[in-house]
């Protein structure tokens, strides 16, 4: 599975939430787009990731 352009390994049947937590992402301060579509926060537990997925995980940084 690709995350932010990089290949990462994926455990089977991992939900998005499990994946993020396992990789020490601060879920409250992120947004995720999966295969180009934004995933609503409410669905993080129910969306199951697969090998072919491509995720963009974004957060706020200084700017502007």
């Amino acid at each position, binding site marked *: 599975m690709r995350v932010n352009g990089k290949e990462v390994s994926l455990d089977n049947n991992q939900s998005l939430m499990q994946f993020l937590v396992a990789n020490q992402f601060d879920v409250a301060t992120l947004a995720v787009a999966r295969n180009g579509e934004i995933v609503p926060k409410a669905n993080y537990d129910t969306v199951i990731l697969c090998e072919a997925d491509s995720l963009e995980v974004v957060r706020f940084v*200084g700017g502007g």
Partner: protein
Amino acid sequence: MADQLIIGGHRFTSRFILGSGKFSLEIVEAVVENGGAEMVTLALRRANLGGEENILDYIPKQITLLPNTSGARTAEEAVKIARLAREINCGNFIKVEVIRDSKYLFPDNYETIKATEILAGEGFIVMPYMYPDLNVARDLVSAGAAAVMPLASPIGSNKGLSTRDFIEILVNEITVPIIVDAGIGRPSQACEAMEMGVDAIMCNTAVATAKNVPLMARAFGQAIESGRNAYLAGLGRVLTEAGEASSPLTGFLED
């Protein structure tokens, strides 16, 4: 009866909007406090695996976050970024910034109008960054913009109010708040813009590149407040030299 800045129904006492780029994270908090800013812009970038520092930890909780769409080169990209930013769940404000000129960083006014219309339709409080053009400003307001953010001069140039006359026209003709953004280099320039009747100032580089960053933030906060007070007080008359016509223009009147 406080003089408040009202954007998209939200009320602010401070008219200083801080851009948070070009700062190290530790400074951000000091700058926000010293400058008195109540709104801070943020960009959206990829989060990396592993627990990295989060800017949100350095911004006091009561500050309104203004995500921007920096990186977008088209309306479509701006819309995508805006939707992602909203998903982080920090409110409905979005600063639309569509730039496809990497030399001067001028915004693309027409893509900005397009993005504004789409995002306003989705309930965002849209604050578009634009090159001061009256027709475009009118189109932005029609498209649903909650404010209009004309540039003073190129981003980071610290050149001040190069577009002064055109910003003044916007102040005279546009009914939503005018927020001057980009190119303000000194507190006196921010003060001058506020004296003209501009509603708020956004700046970043001028503060971030000062020798004493928190103190410069304070200077800006004070300058913006002072300019606003001068505007509200009504600027005094400028004495002009008297020019006498040889005979009065109104000497012909009868009855």
